[in-house]
């Protein structure tokens, strides 16, 4: 007995010599959820949406047993993790998938730390609940401090249509879900603002392209969730006033980009896609589908703070609450006015918005008309009488505008495209634009999607992300691969370089080479492009401090470049992370292969 105990003790003491393993058992099944006023069936991991938060330590082995109790194949992909490709979980590329009744064991070492997530890569199961957070604690001390943390998984749930039905509807009619189209009344409004001729010309411009400026999200009708709860169910994370709270945001939505803010709190962004970045204090940030951002907040008051994730199409919020006690709720404001795409987003800007910089309102008489560089977005600004009125299709297009010499009334009113007014908008930034109010270089100048903080202040840009510790030494890429993001909106076919996945050859990279992906977005949608197994080092002008990301979002009409160190042999998926773009072909296989002896010789 004593010998046995000694042996056991020895085993325990010796254990750290071999890699420790963090083990989880995950069961894929179905469960009823109620986020839209009725019980509906979701596909779940361990019975909940989202699945459990999986926590590991850097350096240990991840051992995850996934059992499939569904009647169809399934899989789990570890989003953002560096791993052997056979463990990556993409059926048809990494492995055959997990058959009904089967258990598949994933096993690989945790070579990194940070906030990541996992989701099904089969069918469209991810869109009906199969996702969860994955957190790896670092070995070394982190370059920031916090007292407690919460994971906030954002997602979207469609209460009316299954993913297959959504896709079928989009194939039948690509604008099936668009109830924000321009109508007779918006035409009358536009004609009133711009004049009949300009309004007509604008309609004709869009009509020529057979596209809709309101096509910001392909799918509407979603209920937005924070940690699986809708706004009323109000997921709440606790804090003690004065504590530093780390929030690990993950966008696990099928189709929804979120603009995240916490009214009353400055957020300091410390990590993007799992990699530490130089801290950036912001008031709001946009999280593309599949991205993660870690922020630190310091709520000092004994009150509830609303964590608001507003959909980019301005159709609703995912709301969570940070509170000192359970049962409290932060307020939900009204949605911001709808955003509309501009000709700039079509890559067809008639001029650069820089031309607006010298716009001088001081010289304007009553009822004067501005013709903007982009005639379609802002022709006919009226400045009448006391309550100065800006008729702006989009509040964000007027950055850098000079109001010098213009006496501002106390309550200026902005008339937005839908006629809603925004009284009391802060004009303090107009005379001398604050640093937070600059145009984001990752959007086309004059873009209707240009983000702007709801309550003023700083909106995070990709340009702000600077790696603290670059993962790779900086070196020039050996070659450039053009990745044109293409699609046919009318037929609802999405593609890369004009070819959809099933018709395409893989992208082949040589093991050890550094290549540059040049993303050229030729569509009017924003595409979050995700590469499995390797980092995409986003060129945001920070040189050797360019941040490494697993998902890079490319706005309409923009070209964005990123380097890839091809250090992971095998076959990898590379795709747009919008569910229905991926499913209709905006997807490639990337093969990383060693040069054969012949090729070397």
């Amino acid at each position, binding site marked *: 007995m004593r010998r046995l105990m000694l042996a056991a003790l020895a085993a325990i003491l010796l254990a750290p010599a071999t890699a420790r393993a963090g083990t989880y058992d995950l069961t894929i099944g179905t469960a009823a959820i109620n986020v839209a006023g009725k019980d509906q069936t979701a596909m779940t991991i361990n019975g909940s949406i989202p699945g459990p938060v999986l926590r590991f330590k850097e350096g240990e082995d991840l051992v995850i047993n996934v059992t499939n109790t569904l009647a*169809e*194949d399934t899989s789990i992909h570890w989003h953002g993790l560096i791993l052997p490709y056979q463990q990556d979980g*993409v*059926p*048809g*590329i990494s492995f055959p*998938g997990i058959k009904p009744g089967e258990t598949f064991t994933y096993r690989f070492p945790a070579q990194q730390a940070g906030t990541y997530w996992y989701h099904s*890569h*089969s*069918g*469209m199961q991810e869109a009906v609940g199969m996702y969860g957070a994955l957190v790896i604690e670092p070995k070394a001390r982190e370059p920031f401090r916090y007292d407690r943390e919460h994971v906030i998984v954002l997602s979207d749930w469609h209460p009316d249509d299954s993913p*297959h039905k959504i*896709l*079928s*509807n989009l*194939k*039948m*009619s690509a604008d*099936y879900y668009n*109830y*924000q*189209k*321009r*109508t*007779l*009344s918006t035409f009358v409004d536009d004609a009133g603002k711009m004049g009949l001729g300009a309004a007509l010309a604008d309609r*004709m411009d869009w*009509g*020529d392209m*057979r596209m809709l400026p309101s096509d910001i999200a392909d799918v509407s009708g979603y209920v937005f969730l924070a940690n699986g709860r809708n706004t009323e169910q109000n997921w709440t994370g606790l804090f003690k006033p004065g504590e530093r709270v780390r929030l690990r945001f993950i966008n696990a939505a099928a189709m929804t980009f979120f603009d995240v803010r916490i009214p009353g709190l400055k957020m300091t962004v410390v990590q993007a896609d799992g990699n530490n970045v130089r801290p950036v204090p912001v008031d709001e940030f946009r999280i593309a589908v599949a991205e993660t951002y870690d922020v630190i907040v310091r709520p000092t008051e004994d009150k509830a703070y609303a964590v608001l994730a507003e959909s980019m199409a301005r159709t609703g919020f995912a709301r969570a609450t940070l509170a000192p006690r359970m049962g409290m709720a932060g307020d939900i404001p009204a949605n911001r006015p709808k955003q509309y795409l501009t000709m700039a987003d079509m890559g067809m800007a008639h001029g650069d918005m820089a031309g607006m910089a010298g716009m001088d309102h001081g010289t304007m008489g009553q009822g004067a008309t501005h013709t903007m560089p982009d005639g379609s977005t802002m022709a006919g600004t009226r400045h009448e009488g006391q309550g100065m009125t800006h008729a702006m299709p989009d509040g964000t297009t007027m950055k850098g505008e000079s109001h010098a010499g213009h006496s501002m009334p106390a309550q200026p009113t902005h008339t937005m495209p839908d006629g809603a007014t925004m009284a009391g908008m802060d004009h303090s930034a107009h005379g001398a634009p604050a640093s937070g109010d600059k145009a984001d270089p990752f959007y086309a100048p004059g873009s209707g999607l240009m983000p702007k903080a709801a309550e003023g202040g700083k909106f995070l840009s990709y340009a702000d992300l600077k790696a603290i510790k670059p993962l790779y030494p900086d070196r020039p890429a050996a070659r450039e691969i053009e990745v044109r993001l293409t699609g*046919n909106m*009318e*037929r609802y*076919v999405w593609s890369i370089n004009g070819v*959809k*996945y*099933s018709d395409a050859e893989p992208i082949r990279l040589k093991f050890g080479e550094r290549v540059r992906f040049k993303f050229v977005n030729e569509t009017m949608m924003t595409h979050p492009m995700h590469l499995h197994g390797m980092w995409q080092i986003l060129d945001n002008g920070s040189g050797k401090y360019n941040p490494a990301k697993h998902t890079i979002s490319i706005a309409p009409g923009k070209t964005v470049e990123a380097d890839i160190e091809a250090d992971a042999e095998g076959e990898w*998926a590379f*795709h747009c992370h919008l569910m229905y773009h*991926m*499913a*209709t*072909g905006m*997807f490639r*296989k990337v093969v990383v292969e060693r040069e054969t002896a012949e090729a070397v010789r």
Partner: protein
Amino acid sequence: MKNFILMIAGGLAVSMTAFSPGGANAAGMDDDIYWHVQADQAEYRIGDGADVLAWQGNAWIGNDDHRLAFKTEGENPIGKRLEKAEFQFLYRKPISDFFDVNAGIRHDLRPDPDRTYGVIGIQGLAKQFVETDANLFVSETGDVSARFEAEVDWLITQRLVLQPLVEVDLAFSEDRRIHSGAGINTVEAGLRLKYEIRREFAPYIGLHYERKFGATANFARDEGEDTDALRFVAGVSFWF
């Protein structure tokens, strides 16, 4: 002529084999087969002449590259025998971002005697969101005719849609037995006001005007029929 029709039927059969089943793999369904059935018009017309039940519908099945399509339209005057009943079976393939080519056969049960045609046409979304469909028909008797249709949706609100449409039928030779002259035979114009209760279901009211020209008009006069008719319509369009 029969050979031509056989050739098209053969083409249809070959195109069927080009379908490949979709799989639930990594990229999901980028080659999946979809299908839809749509009734553009199912309506009752009342006004000049006899009341008429009229329909126009279509269906398709296929993937992005190859589709089989079915079209039908017809008119049944109340209390009289079926006046017009047309069916088309087509193979459809994209030829540009916004246009498809259709090829196949058309069979008219009415007018009497029935006629079979070979069809070739182009259909798609023209600039300013005008839905167009242009077809050339070659009948079993060797007569060549053509039809051009255009319609557009003007949104009054997100769900209330005004839909003007126009259809022109013309023939390059006379086919006396089916009362078809040479030249422009008929022009139809419609204006329908739809309310989309759902995208898939929209009741509507509107006006339908039809006018016959030339020899076709003479044939109609000989039969004691009107050469033009303006009717009020009420109906429903739906798809699934």
